[in-house]
């Protein structure tokens, strides 16, 4: 009996292991598209017609469908025809080749058949091969929540686009993988997307570290990559194939300093930096602008990713009486920071940035989140139609509030779809993105333009937590501030 129980446990355990082992990052199941046709289709050893039908017996109205049924099926079955997608010229070529192989058709019948084929199995009528775009984000590991938001939003954008008829009649297909938040995995996923999935372009829904690792892979392969919300400066410096949606970290840092000095009228500021690509580049931008505005930096310290105990840092900072604390980090660290600052009685205004921008921040920090101000790309009170559509539809589809990460991934798909409408080659995509002006088909817009370093220029928004919600605080449009 005991043995039996153990056995039963082992079976269950094995089942669990197997269920875990099934890779989470399964690519989005592509809706099976019709077989791509290699035009012109080569008829394989078509037997010569034995019974050539009399042309005179053709129906008076020259019905294309009947012709197809009657003449073509004498030699080969019609599946080949029905699965093909060809333009009128291509069909003409095919029919002429068939005639040369012995198909009996007079001129009138020939043009009726071509007309029918082009109409029924033409490029416009049949759903064409989908356009594959690659996507990677962390779906496991400590940053999985953001990766999931990004993926959800990207899928939503693809759905919007396909529901509206796709890109020039072709559907978009999102192929996504998990980078686990690790640079090495991001690089190998990038190779996979390029080599085995043959995507026309890709989107990084990942953090700065993995995105920096993937960018050179795309650059070398000549595939355009858009970084949704990874904001380290070096990402776009990789090369001319790499574009960014999110606001460059140094710009956002600058805006943070502007906000602290002008909107809050603070004099003394303390800086807390999360010790990774994201935090370090934000702080660099902040300090650059702080120096220009004459802000006094009374305290500066770095902390590691995933830090949960800010108490010693707060104890050290408190006697210096800063007016504001500019703290870079993500929502999990930020939730700890604001709660512990309140416990310790720190009075300074906490100013964050887009890393805080998640409903998770408010959920975890609760009442302690009240009054926290952040700079971000997502202005939830924006009057833009697409912003509101995105926020409502996201909530409807996933039963949770959208965040900045999701909005940026959504916009990456929107920008890419816009570019793909101008052409699907890398050159065409690059040209289209660089030519983008005052683009409003996005959740974090309007997008004013792309500069030569492939950075997006657009107003930077700032939000404050009020009554448990991110609400509008200020918007920064000064061209000198928001241009790279």
């Amino acid at each position, binding site marked *: 009996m005991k043995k039996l129980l153990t056995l039963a446990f082992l079976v269950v*355990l094995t089942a669990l292991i197997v269920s*875990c082992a099934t890779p989470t990052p399964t690519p989005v199941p592509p809706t099976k598209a019709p077989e791509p046709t290699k035009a012109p289709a080569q008829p394989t050893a078509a037997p010569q017609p034995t019974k050539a039908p009399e042309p005179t017996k053709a129906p008076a109205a020259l019905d294309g469908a009947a012709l197809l049924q009657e003449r073509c099926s004498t030699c080969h079955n019609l599946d080949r025809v029905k699965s093909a997608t060809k333009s009128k010229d291509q069909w003409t070529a095919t029919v002429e080749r068939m005639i040369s192989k012995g198909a009996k058709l007079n001129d009138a019948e020939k043009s009726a058949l071509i007309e029918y084929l082009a109409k029924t199995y033409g490029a416009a009528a049949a759903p064409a091969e989908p356009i594959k775009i690659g996507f990677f984000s962390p779906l*496991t590991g*400590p940053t999985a929540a953001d990766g999931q938001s990004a993926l959800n939003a990207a899928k939503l954008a693809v759905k919007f686009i396909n529901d509206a008829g796709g890109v020039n009649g072709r559907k978009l297909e999102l192929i996504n993988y998990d980078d686990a938040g690790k640079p090495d995995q991001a690089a190998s996923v990038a190779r996979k997307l390029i080599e085995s999935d043959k995507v026309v372009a890709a989107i990084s829904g990942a953090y700065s570290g993995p995105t920096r690792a993937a960018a050179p892979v795309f650059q070398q392969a000549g595939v355009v990559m858009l970084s949704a919300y990874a904001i380290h400066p070096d990402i776009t410096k990789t090369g001319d194939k790499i574009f960014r949606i999110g606001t460059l970290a140094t710009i956002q840092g600058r805006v943070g300093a502007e906000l602290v000095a002008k909107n809050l009228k603070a004099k003394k500021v303390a800086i807390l930096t999360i010790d990774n690509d994201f935090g370090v580049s934000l702080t660099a931008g902040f300090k650059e602008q702080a120096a220009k505005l004459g802000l006094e930096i009374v305290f500066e310290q770095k902390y590691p990713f995933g830090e949960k*105990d800010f108490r010693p840092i707060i104890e050290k900072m408190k006697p210096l009486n800063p007016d504001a604390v500019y703290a870079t980090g993500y929502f*999990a660290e930020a939730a*700890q920071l604001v709660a512990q600052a309140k416990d310790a009685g720190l009075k300074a205004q906490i100013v964050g940035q887009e890393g805080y921008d998640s409903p998770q921040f408010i959920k*975890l*920090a609760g009442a302690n989140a009240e009054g926290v101000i952040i700079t971000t790309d997502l202005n939830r009170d924006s009057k833009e139609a697409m912003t509101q559509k995105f926020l409502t539809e996201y909530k409807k589809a996933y039963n949770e509030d959208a965040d900045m990460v999701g909005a940026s991934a959504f916009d990456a798909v929107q920008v890419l779809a816009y570019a793909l409408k101008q052409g699907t080659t890398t050159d065409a995509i690059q040209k289209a993105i660089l030519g983008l002006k005052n683009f409003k088909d996005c959740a974090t817009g309007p997008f004013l333009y792309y500069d030569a370093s492939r950075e997006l220029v657009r107003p930077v928004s700032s939000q404050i937590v009020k009554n448990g919600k991110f609400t509008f605080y200020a918007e920064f449009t000064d061209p000198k501030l928001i241009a790279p």
Partner: protein
Amino acid sequence: MSIAQNLSNAMVLASTYILIAIGLTMVYGVLKVLHIAHAGVYASGAFIGLIAFNFAREFFTPLLEDARLASNLSFWFSLPIAMLVAGVMGVLIYLLVYRYTWGKSPTISLVASVGLFTLIQDLLQKPFLLGPRQQPYPAGGAGMPRIETPWFTLTPTQVLILVVTLVLLAIVYFILNRTRIGLGWQAAALDPEMAAAVGVNVTRVILLNFFIGSMLAGAAGVLVGVYDNMVFATMGDVPSYKAFVVVVLGGLGSVAGTIVAGIVLAIAETFMVAFAGSLMPRDAIAFLVLILLLMFRPRGLLGRA
């Protein structure tokens, strides 16, 4: 102000380290296995506690018409449940894994343990359990008072952690030193074969060992979840290696040493962060302390020669 405050904060941090590490020490003491999956039990404890807490809160709130009281009650309901489930989980881990690897090369147990830890974490991250997102555990101080002195302040949650830790440690001390089974544990830790020869039921000792150790890990998960107001699937990542620093620092297998080491480590980390600043992340500090200590006391703080 600052030094006393940092010290009191460090003691709270130490409490969580100690609760996690004692289970490890106990397992190592008898089985000589590096039980990495213990951190998975810790995360699972937090998860079970959270479920029990949310369930109880939904039940109590309309009944009591006092949200604060309902939340406090729910916490005291969730803690024992989490501990119990974690304890059972520990026993199952022994019965299903270590029972078969015990006595073979320690590498086998270690690899099995790492695999088990990954399995538990990945399972927790599945949407039908905890999902990829952090969940709040808003129990606050569970009715504990706030302690304000001129030198330092303890928030209600900090008081809660200190009180629960002290009570649990007292119980463990009693079991290990004042009961037959505890004496059996000590005997088995010294030499399992000899203990078995003189009539100690070693299997029972080991089962109890896993049960108690895992219960403490479950309690640690709940307390840390409440302290950070955050429970998430990968919360065992850092403890999976840091608890070993505490165990090795204390002298492998020594319960008293583990307690001392937990306190030393928490104080070292807190003051290094407070005074040395951005020199190095706190996890690096933990290993620095370990290396320094092992240079002078290779068997740990209270390790037996």
